[in-house]
C-alpha cells in the first residue's frame, strides 16, 4: 500500500517498540526485586499480564473491533507490570486482578483505549485497591522473610490465613506509625530509629534501596534511548529532594533525609516510569517540568503527612487531573513569535 500523502519517508519506529523498551528497562528492577522477595513477584507479573491481555481482548470483543493491534502493542503489559510491581507481592490473586480490571477496563478502555485515558491506569488500580482493601494493600513481606515457592503460591492463590507475622512494616510505614506513636520521645534521628528496627540499609530502606537503584538504572536507559525526556524525572527528583531537605533540616528527628525518600517506596519507579507516562501526563516541556515538580511535592506531602503509606499513586493521579490544563497553559511559542532580533539600522517606529 502506498501512503496517499507525503511524507513518503518514515523512520522505522513503532509504539510497540517504545512499549518494549519500557518493559525492557523494567527488567533490572524486577530482577533485583524478585531476588529479594522470591518468585512471588514473577507470579504476580504473569498473573497481571494475563489478566490485562484478557481484559483488553474482552473489551475489543464486546466492541466488535479487531483486538490484534491492541494486544500486540504491549501497552497493556506495561500497565500490568507496573501493577504487579506496586502491589504487595503476596497479594491474593483476586486483588491483583481487581487492580488490573480497574486499570485496563475502567481507566483505559472506557476512555477509548490507548492514548486517550486521562489517568494513569496502574495508579488508578493502586488507588482503588488501597482505598477498598487498605489492610491487604499494606501487607508487605519482610525483606528477611524467605518463603518457598509453594508457600508463596499458597498465599497468593490459596485460602491460607494471612499471617500478620509474615508481613512487616516497610521503612515508610515505620516513619509514619512509629514516629507518630513516639511523638515527643527523643530517639535520635529517623535514620537511627530505622537502624534500631533493622530496616536501614546502606543509604535508605534495607533491600528497597537496591530495587530503587535498579529502577534508576532502567530509567536512565529509557532516557538514553530517547523514550522519555529528562524533564519529568529531573523535576520530580529535584522537587522531592528539595522539600525533604527543608523538612530534614528543620527537624531530623521527625523527618528523614532526602536520599532516603528518593530510594524508598515508589519514588524511582514513579519518577521514571509512571510520571513519564506520556498519555496521562503533560506533553509540553514546561508542562512536564511543572508536572514533575507537582508530583514530587505531593508525593512527599502525602507520604509524610497524609494517611496513606506512600504518595506516589495519588500524587501522580492528582497531577494527571491538572495535565490538560497545564498543557494548554504552557504551550511553547511558535517559531518566530518571540521578539525578533533587532535589525541593525532599522528605525524603531
Amino acid at each position, binding site marked *: *500500500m502506498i501512503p*496517499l*500523502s507525503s511524507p513518503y519517508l518514515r523512520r522505522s519506529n513503532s509504539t510497540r517498540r517504545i512499549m518494549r523498551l519500557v518493559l525492557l528497562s523494567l527488567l533490572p528492577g524486577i530482577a533485583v526485586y524478585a531476588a529479594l522477595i522470591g518468585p512471588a513477584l514473577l507470579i504476580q507479573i504473569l498473573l497481571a499480564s494475563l489478566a490485562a491481555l484478557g481484559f483488553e481482548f474482552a473489551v475489543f470483543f464486546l466492541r466488535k473491533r479487531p483486538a490484534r493491534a491492541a494486544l500486540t502493542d504491549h501497552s497493556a503489559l506495561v500497565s500490568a507490570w507496573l501493577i504487579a510491581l506496586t502491589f504487595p507481592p503476596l497479594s491474593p490473586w483476586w486483588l491483583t486482578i481487581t487492580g488490573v480490571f480497574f486499570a485496563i477496563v475502567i481507566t483505559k478502555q472506557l476512555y477509548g483505549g490507548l492514548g486517550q485515558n486521562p489517568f494513569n491506569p496502574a495508579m488508578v488500580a493502586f488507588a482503588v485497591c488501597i482505598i477498598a482493601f487498605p489492610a491487604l494493600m499494606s501487607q508487605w513481606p519482610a525483606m528477611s522473610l524467605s518463603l518457598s515457592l509453594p508457600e508463596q503460591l499458597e498465599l497468593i492463590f490459596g485460602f491460607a490465613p494471612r499471617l500478620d507475622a509474615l508481613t512487616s512494616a516497610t521503612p515508610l510505614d515505620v516513619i509514619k506509625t512509629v514516629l507518630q506513636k513516639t511523638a515527643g520521645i527523643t530517639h535520635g534521628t529517623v535514620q537511627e530509629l530505622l537502624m534500631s528496627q533493622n530496616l536501614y540499609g546502606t543509604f535508605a530502606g534495607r533491600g528497597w534501596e537496591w530495587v530503587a537503584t535498579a529502577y534508576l538504572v532502567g530509567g536512565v536507559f529509557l532516557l538514553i534511548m530517547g523514550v522519555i525526556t529528562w524533564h519529568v524525572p529531573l523535576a520530580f527528583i529535584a522537587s522531592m529532594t528539595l522539600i525533604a531537605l527543608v523538612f530534614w533540616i528543620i527537624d531530623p528527628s521527625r523527618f528523614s533525609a532526602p536520599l532516603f525518600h528518593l530510594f524508598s517506596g515508589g519514588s524511582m519507579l514513579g519518577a521514571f516510569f509512571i510520571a513519564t507516562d506520556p498519555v496521562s501526563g503533560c506533553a509540553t516541556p514546561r508542562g512536564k517540568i511543572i508536572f514533575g515538580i507537582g508530583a514530587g511535592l505531593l508525593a512527599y506531602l502525602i507520604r509524610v503527612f497524609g494517611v496513606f503509606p506512600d504518595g506516589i499513586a495519588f500524587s501522580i493521579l492528582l497531577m494527571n487531573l491538572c495535565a490538560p490544563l497545564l498543557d494548554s497553559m504552557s504551550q511553547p511559542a511558535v517559531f518566530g513569535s518571540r521578539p525578533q532580533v533587532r535589525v541593525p539600522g532599522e528605525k524603531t517606529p
Partner: protein
Amino acid sequence: MDVLTAIAILTLGAALLGAALGFAAVHFRVEGNPLTEKIAALLPQTQCGQCGYPGCKPYAEAIAQGGADINLCAPGGEDGVRKIAELLGLEIKPLAEGAAQKPPAVARIVEDRCIGCTLCIQACPVDAIVGAAKQMHTVISSLCTGCELCLPPCPENCIEMLPVQETTENWAWRYPARVPALPPLALSPAASGENSC
C-alpha cells in the same frame, strides 16, 4: 406567639429581599438582547428564509428569545447547529426535517431565455443580480449566496442553480482514510522501453 414571630420575621425578610431585587431590576436593567448579534454572526447570512423567518437576523432574534429551534438553518448545516448549540449551551441536534444541507451552488441566468422582467433582481436579498428592464440580467456569481430566492419569481424559469465545481484552485485535502485507494500507475518497464533514449 412563636408562630406569629416566625411569620413576621419571614415576611420581613422576604419583603427586604424583594425590595432589594426590585431595586436591582430597575437599576441593573439591560436593554436589548446581546445574544441576537452573536447568534446572527454564526448564521451564514444567505437570507434564504428556509428557516421560516424573513432573513438571518429575524431567525437569530427568534432563537435568542427562545422561540425558535436551533436546527432550522439548512445552509449553515450541522456545523452551524453545533456552533449555535455551543454558544447557548444546548444539546446538538440533527438538522430539522426538510432542512437538508445542499452542496454549495450559485444561480445562473440562461441568457437567451431572459426577458428582462427585473423580478429576480427584486427578489435577490444581496443585490447579486444586475440588469435593467427589458435588458438581459446576469448573476454576479462571486456575490451569489445560493439562496434560490430568485427561482420562484422568474416567469420564464430561466434561472438554474449550478453546483460549485471543484477545481485545482479550490480543492482541499480529504480527511485521511484508513485505507487509501489509488490505482497503480502504468509505469511498467515495457512502456519505458519504447521511449528510452
